[in-house]
């Protein structure tokens, strides 16, 4: 039997990996992928809580998180394509259009 703490630690490690990619990477696409990694970590946490607490709320939240992630990916990738069309780059430190 796997204890709840194992799922908690796995979720935290994955969240930190995603956060590292979100903060450190230059490529806008990889930044968006890192957001997906963080959302996946949260999904594990909700499902594990639901499983160990015998409470259906976590599973329902996982359902909503997956739907929200799909909407977020669509909008985020559209914005990435628009930025690439306008500025010809997807590297976040080259996007200094509004710096003045």
């Amino acid at each position: 039997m796997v204890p709840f703490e194992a799922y908690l630690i796995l979720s935290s490690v994955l969240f930190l990996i995603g956060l590292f990619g979100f903060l450190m990477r230059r490529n806008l696409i990889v930044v968006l992928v890192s957001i997906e990694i963080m959302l996946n970590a949260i999904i594990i946490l909700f499902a594990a809580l639901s499983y160990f607490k015998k409470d259906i709320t976590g599973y329902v939240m996982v359902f909503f998180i997956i739907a929200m992630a799909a909407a977020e990916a669509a909008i985020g990738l559209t914005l990435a394509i628009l930025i690439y069309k306008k500025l010809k780059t997807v590297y976040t430190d080259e996007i200094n259009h509004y710096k003045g």
Partner: protein
Amino acid sequence: MGLGIDLNSLIFGYLAFAMVVSSVLAVFSKNPVHTVLLVLVMVVHQAFLLLTLGSEFLMAVQLIVYAGAVLVLFLFVVYLINLRKETKHSIFVKRFCLCSLVFLLFLGFMGVNLYLIYGAKKFEQAVLPFNPLEKDNLWWIAHYLFNYYLLPFEIIGVILLVAVLGAVFLVRKVKTTEEA
């Protein structure tokens, strides 16, 4: 088992190891195509982790939505933008110190949180309880989704509609301004 390790721990260990390794490789890979494919590996493993957490419906949703739709969308965009490999520069941002400061702040915050959670691990009474022996997981999700979470369900539908329409609208608008 003879080795003193039961099958559940073995499966969880393999899934956790594969997920952590593939996401670390995804974050540190130079080629964005490799990043997306490694995250695909992570998502498939996570789908089976959801199966071990007792929800076959969420495994199917995870495979269909994440592996089937979201990551294919990412792969299309990577090919559409036609990124060169980041060999000339570092793959990380220039303001490394500031970003690591924020990262370490989060790390410390999460450490404190885990420490506090580890102290108080008793679960309280469930809000919307279910019995997996009585009906299967999908029945319970449907029951509570359409009885208690009907309004959020409708709202998430509207959000998805707005996202799709917004994506189409944004791309169309730029095309017309470039032609004018």
